[in-house]
C-alpha cells in the first residue's frame, strides 16, 4: 500500500466517523420543568367573569355503529401503525343489547389518574388536557385502575400505557368518525342565570327589607294581600280560627311554589340572600356531623312552631324567624329597632359548616314550601346522555343545598334531584357546560329517548 492509498483510507475513516457523529441522536436531557409535575391551576380572578372552557369529546351512543374507525385512526397517532388494540380510545359493544360505547379520557377537572400516579407522570395542562409524561411513566398501570372510565389503556402488544391527549386540541377520532358519534365541545360560556338571580335577590332584599317595613310576614298593596304561609299556619293555630283573608293571602306563595317549585327560597328570600353573601366570605366548610343532617328536621321545626303557637296563644316561631326579623327590624325609618336582629348573624354563622345550612335542615318556611312543591309542575333533570358525570361534578359543587349526589356522579350515574329540597336557584342549569341539567315539566323526559327520572 503506498502513501496515497494510506491517506485515502485515513480520510475515509475520518469521514465515516464524522457521519456516525452526525447521525447520532442527541440524548434527551431532562429540564427542570420536566421534573415539576403540572397540576390544574387555581381559579383566577378573571374566571369569575369569563370561565375557562376546556375542550372535551362528547360521545353519542345512539349514533355509534361500532365500526372502530376511531380506534384505527387513534392508533396511527399513538404508534404510527394501524393497530386498533393500541389506540387510546376503545369501542366496547354489548352484543346482547346491541349497544356500542367509546371509552375515552374525559380530561376530568380533578383527574383521579393524576392523583394515583406514583411517579407523578400524569399532568393536567392549562389547556385542560390530561397527559402522560413518558419520561416518568413506568407503566405501572395504577392510572388505569384509578380512572372510573378506565380510559388510560394498556397496550397489549407492548404493555405501555396510552392515554388520549385530544391530539393536542384537534382530535382525529372526531374528524374521522363516519357517524359523527364523537364531537367536541368547550361547553357553554353564558352564565346569565347567575347574574339574573343575584339581581333579583338584591332587588327583593331592597324591597322587602329596606324599602317596606314588615313586608314578608304581611304585605298589602291595595286589594293585593300577601302573607307568610308558615306565619299564617301559626296564626290559625294560635287563634283557633281560620281567617279566610289571611289564608287566601298565604296561598299566593304556595301557588307560586306549585307552579315553579321553591323559587321563593332561591330567588326572593332575603335571609337566603344574606346567607349567599356570607357564603362568599366564609372559609372552607367544616361540615355538620351526620346525626344533625336530617332534612326532615325542618318539618319537625314546622310542627313545633305550629304546636307551640297553639299552646302559647301567639305566633311563637315568628319572634325568632330570621326572615321576619330581617324584614321587621330594619327599615328606612327605623334603624336597628330591636335586639332580635341578633338572630341573623347567629344563624348566618352556620354557613361556616355548610352552605345554606339553615335552609337545608331547619327553616320551617322552606318546609312549608317543600310540602307545597309536592304538587310542582317543574323539575330539574340531569340527562344521562349529556352528563359527563365523574369528570365534571360541577352541578354538585354549585348546588347550595347539596341535593345533587356527587358520589353518584363519581360512580357514573346521573343523579335524581329531590325536588322538595330543590330551591330552584338554577345554579346547576347555569353551570352545566354540556347542557345536561335542564328544567322540564314533571311529566317530561330528560331528553327524547332517555329514561324518565
Amino acid at each position, binding site marked *: 500500500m503506498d502513501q496515497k492509498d494510506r491517506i485515502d483510507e485515513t480520510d475515509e475513516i475520518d469521514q465515516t466517523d464524522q457521519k456516525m457523529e452526525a447521525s447520532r441522536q442527541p440524548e434527551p436531557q431532562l429540564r427542570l420543568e420536566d421534573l415539576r409535575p403540572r397540576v390544574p391551576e387555581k381559579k383566577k380572578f378573571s374566571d369569575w367573569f369569563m370561565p375557562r372552557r376546556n375542550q372535551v369529546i362528547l360521545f353519542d351512543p*345512539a349514533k*355509534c*355503529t*361500532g*365500526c*372502530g*374507525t376511531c380506534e*384505527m*385512526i387513534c*392508533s*396511527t397517532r399513538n*404508534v*404510527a*401503525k*394501524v*393497530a*386498533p*388494540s*393500541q389506540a387510546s380510545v376503545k369501542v366496547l*359493544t354489548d*352484543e*346482547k*343489547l*346491541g*349497544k*356500542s360505547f367509546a371509552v375515552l379520557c374525559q380530561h376530568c377537572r380533578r383527574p383521579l389518574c393524576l392523583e394515583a400516579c406514583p411517579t407523578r407522570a400524569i399532568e393536567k395542562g392549562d389547556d385542560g388536557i390530561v397527559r402522560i409524561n413518558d419520561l416518568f411513566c413506568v407503566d405501572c398501570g395504577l392510572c388505569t385502575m384509578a380512572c372510573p372510565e378506565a380510559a388510560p389503556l394498556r397496550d*397489549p*402488544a407492548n404493555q405501555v400505557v396510552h392515554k388520549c391527549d385530544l391530539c393536542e386540541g384537534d382530535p*382525529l377520532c372526531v*374528524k*374521522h368518525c*363516519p*357517524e359523527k358519534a364523537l364531537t367536541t365541545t368547550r361547553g357553554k360560556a353564558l352564565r346569565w342565570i347567575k347574574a339574573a338571580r343575584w339581581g333579583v335577590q338584591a332587588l327583593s332584599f331592597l324591597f322587602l327589607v329596606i324599602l317596606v317595613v314588615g313586608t314578608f310576614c304581611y304585605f298589602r298593596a291595595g286589594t293585593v294581600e300577601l302573607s307568610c304561609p308558615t306565619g299564617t299556619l301559626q296564626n290559625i293555630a294560635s287563634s283557633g280560627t281560620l281567617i279566610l283573608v289571611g289564608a287566601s293571602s298565604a296561598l299566593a306563595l304556595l301557588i307560586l311554589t306549585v307552579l315553579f317549585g321553591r323559587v321563593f327560597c332561591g330567588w326572593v328570600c332575603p335571609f337566603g340572600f344574606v346567607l349567599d353573601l356570607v357564603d362568599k366570605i366564609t372559609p372552607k366548610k367544616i361540615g355538620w356531623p351526620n346525626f344533625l343532617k336530617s332534612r326532615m328536621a325542618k318539618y319537625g321545626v314546622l310542627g313545633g312552631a305550629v304546636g307551640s303557637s297553639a299552646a302559647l296563644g301567639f305566633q311563637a316561631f315568628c319572634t325568632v324567624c330570621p326572615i321576619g326579623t330581617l324584614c321587621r327590624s330594619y327599615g328606612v325609618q327605623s334603624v336597628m329597632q330591636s335586639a332580635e336582629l341578633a338572630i341573623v348573624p347567629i344563624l348566618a354563622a352556620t354557613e361556616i359548616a355548610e352552605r345554606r345550612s339553615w335552609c337545608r335542615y331547619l327553616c320551617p318556611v322552606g318546609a312549608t314550601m317543600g310540602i307545597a312543591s309536592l304538587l310542582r309542575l317543574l323539575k330539574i333533570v340531569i340527562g344521562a346522555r349529556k352528563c359527563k358525570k365523574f369528570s365534571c361534578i360541577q352541578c354538585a359543587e354549585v348546588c347550595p343545598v347539596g341535593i345533587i349526589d356527587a358520589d353518584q356522579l363519581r360512580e357514573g350515574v346521573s343523579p335524581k334531584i329531590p325536588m322538595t329540597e330543590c330551591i330552584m336557584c338554577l345554579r346547576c342549569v347555569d353551570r352545566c357546560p354540556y347542557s345536561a341539567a335542564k328544567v322540564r315539566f314533571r311529566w317530561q323526559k330528560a331528553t327524547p329517548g332517555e329514561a324518565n327520572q
Partner: protein
Amino acid sequence: MSLYQPFTNGKIGVVDLTTLSVYTAELPWDACQEHVGGAAVNAWLLSQYESDTLIFGTGPLTGSFAPASALLVGTFRSPRYDHLCHVPFMLRSGPEMKFSGIDYLVIRGAAKESCTLSVGRGQVRVLTIPESTGKSVPELLQMLRRSAPGFRASIVTGPAADQGSPFASASIGSHGSLDKVGLAARMAAKNLKAVLFNGIEGLPFREDHPALSKATETMLRDSGALAAQGFVPILKKLDDGSEAAGALRGKLGRNRACYHCPCPCMTYAAFSKSGPEKEGLLLMDHAGWAALSRKSEDALPLLKRCLELGLDPLAAGTGLREDRPLREAMNAVEALAAAGASIDEEDYPSAPRIDTRIFRILGGGVMPLVSGTTWSDRVAEAMLLGICPIFVQIAGRLDRSDLLRFLTSDAEELKALAARLDDAIQVLQEGKIPEAGSEF
C-alpha cells in the same frame, strides 16, 4: 418490492391437525403479485396442498384505511357442491386476523379430538378442548373465553356441525355468518371447533391513507350512496324483502357496522323493547331472515335458535312448513341441526338472476343488490381485495380505481394491477383451483 408489502405481514401459518404441528412461512410475493390476494391467493394455496385443506385469508386491503376493509375469506372444496367455494366473513374477523400477524392460515389434516386454533403475535397455537364438542355457540364462546382469554374475533361452529348436518354454518362469534356452502361441515370434518384471532399487532400505513379514506367517505356520502343504512333497507331490495322487513316492525334497535365501514348494514333486533326479553340479536343474514320470516311469525326466536345451533337460517327457513306453532318449528330446526331431517338441494334457494354456480362459489350468502354480472364482478373483486362484498354493492359510486388507489398511487402500477385483478376475477368465478405458477 411487492405492491402489497406495505399492508401485509407477509406470513402464512400452516397447521397440520393430524400431527398437531404448526409452522409459519414467508408469503411468496410473486404468487401474491399474480393472484392479487384474498380468495385468489387462498385458492392458489389450496392448490399446493391436499384437496380437503381449509384456508383462511385476508385481502391486501383488509384492515387498511379502505372503507369496509373487514373481509376474511374462508376457501375450501365444498362437501355439498364438490367445487371450490369462498365464504366471506366480516365484522372484525378480517382485521383481527391480519393484526394477529398472519395473512393466510392453511389448515391441513384432521384432528383426533376437538380442537381450536388461536392466532396471535404471528403464531398459531392448537388448543385441544375435547369437551367443546356439542356445545351451543354461546356456551362454546364462554368456554373459549376461559381457555384462551383475550381473543378479539372468532369463527366458531355449533352443535349442528358436530352432528354432521350439511346445513351447519360457521359463525362470527355468536352472530352467524353468510356461510351457506358448508364451511362449518368442513371444519367439523377436521374436528376444528373454532379459530380465534387476537389482533394486537399493527401494520404501517401510507401517509396519505387517512386523507384518502376521508375523501372516499365524503364522496360516497355526497353521492347519496350511504343514505339507506341498516338491515331493513337492504332487505327491502330482495324480492320478498318488504314482507320480511314488515316482520321486524317495532323490534329494531341500533345499526351495526363492520370494521371501518361508513354504511352499517346490520341492525340489532330486540325480542321485546322492555322486560326480561329486552336482549336481542344482530341481524346480518338477509336471506336467512327472509326465509324464516316467510314461514313463521316467530322468526326471531327461531333465528336465535339457529345461531345457537350454528345452523344456516336459510336452510331452516326452507325446511320449515308454513305457520307451524313455535314448538313444532323449533323441533324441525333441531332435527335439521341433528341431521335427522334434510332438504333437497333443488329446494335450497339461490339468488334470482345470478348464475347459481357462481353464486355458490362466492359463498352463497351475499345477496344481490345489483344484478347479473355486475354482482359477480363486484363481489369477486371485493373477495380479492378484502372489502365487504355487501358494501361494494351499496357503494355503487366506489369503483375499482378508488379501491386500488389504497394499494398504489402510481398510474402504471395501477393499470397493471387492474389487469391482474380482471384475470383473477375470471379465475375466481370459474371456481377452478389455479395452476401453481410458482413452487411453494
